């Protein structure tokens, strides 16, 4: 039978058509819109807490809609609400090197009870000035920030044990302990530089943090970490690179060895050693900043010593498991039995079995020592390797059904594989260059599953262009079926790294609606308009001001002089949800305040010229919000204008002469 040339040409054209490269459109399934659509007035299914990267903040999104709900100020000042500018919040950003208004925020951890998210607190790391913050999930507010001594770059943080006993802080950059000076060359690095793993103890009721102890490790770069759980509870696992111990051109020098390590720390043992008095006290200095809910004020405490443990002396504290090649992610599956190391330069994924690791220690299956720490034989701890999974494996999350999901930076994809037989089951492209990924509850004993979210490094053509700097990008995939399915793109703030997600029910009903004004113990509270006043103490002027719809009391102030330090202590008298008041004064060189109902906040203002300074409420509060305004008269220095104030003509705010 003869085919006409025309038919052949048509067949060829069809073949070419079907060989076209996969586009974004073809990657999105038909019902994706319906599965991510949250109708007006409806709530999202999950809260998604996403690290803000170089913004220093934490963003809260709803899933599956991807809608931005809030940006929580944590490590960076936020003039929008006065965080880091108000007298009450300034101490939150104090460090041993002064006030630091910015940081680089990479990872988040929701508090856990019995290996499940309990919705109480969210922990966040600061990479640059090593710190860990605790955010309260009732008020969505940063309540505590602790600095880490002997740390250079707090990257391997904040990861939690299964009952929130400890939050971990491992150093990315090794540095000489005690902030000592040292020459910069490879020899000096080997001799003087150390990495540390800090175990921050968490009070189980208040959430208060304290650096319980530090393990001083050989100089290398700790990267990421996970606590063991279930059978491996009591252990912590860190990935590490630069075991070559190079101080320069790490791109080449830290990529020489075929294998680096997973560092396994027996923290239960560490606790025993601390109890037995085996820890050494080291003099140091670091800050611990806490926000007090009763007086709405943060205070800084300087801590002068830290307990350290030396694994070279305490032989059964730390073991090293060889892991190819410059491992980045280090993840523990929901059963607590398998530890996944992801060598970002490796072409396979090694999976270690906890039971085999324990047996290897018992059998002394060691291949040698590294700086005095035993190194277990690779094969002795290995469960198996996932062969040819993709290029550049980074992080792995789990769905609780025996599947693992690994992100691949270089090949820009998510690969689903089976923990049991290490077979690749499915792969989907990400747009583009995924870093972290997150399955809701994927780091816990009981993953919620259902979705995986990719947090990508490159946005390129995903959104309307906005000049050289583009929006950051996250992508939501369904993992309910056998095949992963792309559902949604949504832009994020900063550069997103790791994230956490929790069902809305575990958080939404505990939300604080307002602060009880009867319990406000701020030293400058005005718990009613009758308590408003203006006081002069030398060159300080304290204004006890109240805000309620729709006036500020007092709203006329005279007798302030150029160079005075004027403290506006604003108390919001409202006792209803969603009624904050704002406060801004012309020429303030700092920020405004947003004051929550029942709260007192203070803005410091130093006028430099005489004149009349208007002030007003910045947060639209009522039909008469635009009328919520006032004036402060500033006279030249040494003027004899008496201090007086009032609002309207009521007797409670009658003018009183100064002194």
């Amino acid at each position, binding site marked *: 039978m003869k085919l006409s040339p025309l038919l052949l040409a048509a067949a060829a054209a069809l073949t070419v058509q079907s060989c076209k490269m996969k586009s974004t459109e073809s990657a999105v399934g038909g019902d994706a819109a319906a599965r991510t659509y949250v109708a007006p007035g409806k709530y999202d299914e999950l809260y998604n807490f996403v690290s803000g990267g170089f913004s220093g903040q934490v963003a809260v999104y709803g899933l599956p809609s991807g809608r931005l709900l809030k940006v929580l100020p944590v490590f960076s000042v936020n003039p929008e609400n006065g965080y880091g500018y108000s007298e009450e919040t300034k101490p939150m950003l104090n460090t041993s090197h002064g006030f630091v208004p910015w940081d680089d925020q990479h990872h988040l951890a929701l508090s856990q009870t019995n290996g499940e998210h309990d919705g109480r607190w969210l922990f966040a790391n600061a990479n640059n000035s090593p710190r860990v913050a605790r955010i309260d999930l009732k008020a969505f507010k940063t309540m505590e920030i602790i600095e880490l001594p002997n740390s250079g770059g707090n990257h391997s943080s904040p990861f939690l044990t299964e009952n929130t006993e400890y939050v971990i802080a491992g150093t990315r950059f090794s540095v000489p302990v005690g902030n000592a000076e040292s020459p910069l060359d490879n020899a000096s690095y080997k001799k003087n530089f150390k990495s540390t793993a800090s175990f921050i103890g968490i009070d189980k009721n208040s959430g208060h943090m304290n650096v319980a102890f530090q393990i001083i490790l050989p100089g290398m770069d700790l990267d990421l970490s996970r606590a063991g759980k279930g059978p491996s509870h009591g252990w912590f696992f860190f990935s590490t690179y630069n075991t070559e111990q190079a101080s320069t051109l790490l791109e080449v020098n830290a990529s020489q060895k075929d294998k680096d390590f997973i560092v396994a720390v027996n923290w239960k043992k560490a606790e025993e050693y601390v109890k037995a008095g085996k820890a050494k006290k080291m003099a140091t200095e670091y800050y611990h900043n806490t926000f007090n809910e009763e007086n709405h004020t943060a205070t800084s405490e300087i801590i002068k010593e830290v307990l350290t443990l030396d694994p070279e002396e305490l032989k059964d504290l730390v073991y090293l498991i060889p892991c190819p090649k410059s491992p980045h992610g280090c993840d523990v599956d929901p059963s607590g039995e398998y530890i996944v190391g992801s060598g970002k330069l490796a072409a396979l994924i090694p999976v270690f079995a906890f039971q085999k690791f324990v047996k290897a220690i018992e059998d002394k299956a060691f291949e040698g020592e590294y700086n005095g720490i035993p190194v277990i034989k690779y094969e002795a701890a290995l469960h198996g390797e996932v062969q040819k999974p993709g290029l550049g494996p980074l992080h792995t999350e789990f769905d609780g059904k025996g599947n693992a999901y690994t992100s691949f930076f270089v090949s820009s994809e998510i690969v689903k594989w089976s923990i049991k037989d290490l077979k690749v089951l499915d792969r989907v492209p990400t747009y583009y260059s995924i870093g972290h990924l997150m399955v809701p509850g994927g780091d816990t004993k009981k993953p919620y599953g259902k979705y995986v979210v990719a947090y990508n490094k490159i946005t390129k053509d995903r959104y309307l262009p906005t000049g050289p700097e583009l929006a950051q990008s996250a992508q939501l995939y369904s993992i309910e079926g056998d095949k992963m399915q792309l559902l949604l793109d949504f832009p994020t703030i900063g550069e997103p790294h790791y994230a956490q997600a929790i069902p809305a029910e575990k958080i939404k009903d505990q939300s604080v609606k307002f602060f009880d004004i009867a319990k406000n113990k701020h030293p400058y509270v005005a718990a009613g308009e009758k308590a408003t006043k203006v006081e002069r103490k030398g060159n300080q002027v304290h204004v006890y001001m109240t805000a*309620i*719809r*729709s006036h500020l009391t007092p709203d006329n102030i005279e007798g302030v002089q150029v160079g005075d330090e004027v403290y506006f202590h604003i108390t919001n008298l*409202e*006792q*209803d949800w969603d009624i904050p008041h704002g406060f801004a004064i012309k020429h303030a060189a700092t920020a405004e305040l947003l004051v929550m109902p029942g709260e007192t906040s203070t803005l410091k203002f130093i006028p430099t010229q005489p004149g009349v300074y208007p002030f007003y409420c910045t947060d639209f509060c*009522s*039909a*008469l919000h635009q*009328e919520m305004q006032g004036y402060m008269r500033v006279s030249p220095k040494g003027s004899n204008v008496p201090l007086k104030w009032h609002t309207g003509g009521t007797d409670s705010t009658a003018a009183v002469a100064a002194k």
Partner: protein
Amino acid sequence: MNRKLSAFGKVSIILAIGCIVMLWIVPMWRIDLAAPQYPEGISMQIWINDVKGDVEIINGLNHYIGMKTIHKNDFKEFVYMPVALGAFCLLGLLVLVLNRRAWFYAWTGLLLLIAAVSMYDFWKWEYDYGHNLDPTAPIKVPGMAYQPPLIGYKKMLNFEALSQPDIGGWFFIAAALLLTSAAFYEWRRAKKQRL
């Protein structure tokens, strides 16, 4: 001629007292408000001796239109009501002991009188509250009054208001219905006896 109460009459006294005593345990009346910016609703409960619920929120809102603020201490009713209802219950026990129809009629009448006076007093307060506005109020709508409904639904500017008996109120109504029907039954029984 037998002037004594029937068994039904006697039982109704005990039940009615029981109903009235409930007013110390549950609220008597409720006013619910809803507006677009208050999707969760605002609610105020009136007890025989107190006013509870979102009173502070209502006070905060009403200052725009110059309505007076609501304070428990401004209501002498919260002193009179418990005294009147307490006395009513004690009198009920006396009627039970005296066991005379005439006293029963009078006692039933007393409850209906208390109900009528209370409702009139409530209406009068609502009228004053809704009409007696501060002349310097920021928002003035010509010809607008804000008297809440005595009972039922009413739309006032952006607010919808619903006024109705709360659990205690229904117990009161049950007591009144019970005593009225018992009195009617006693009257029919007496008429039959006379024939």
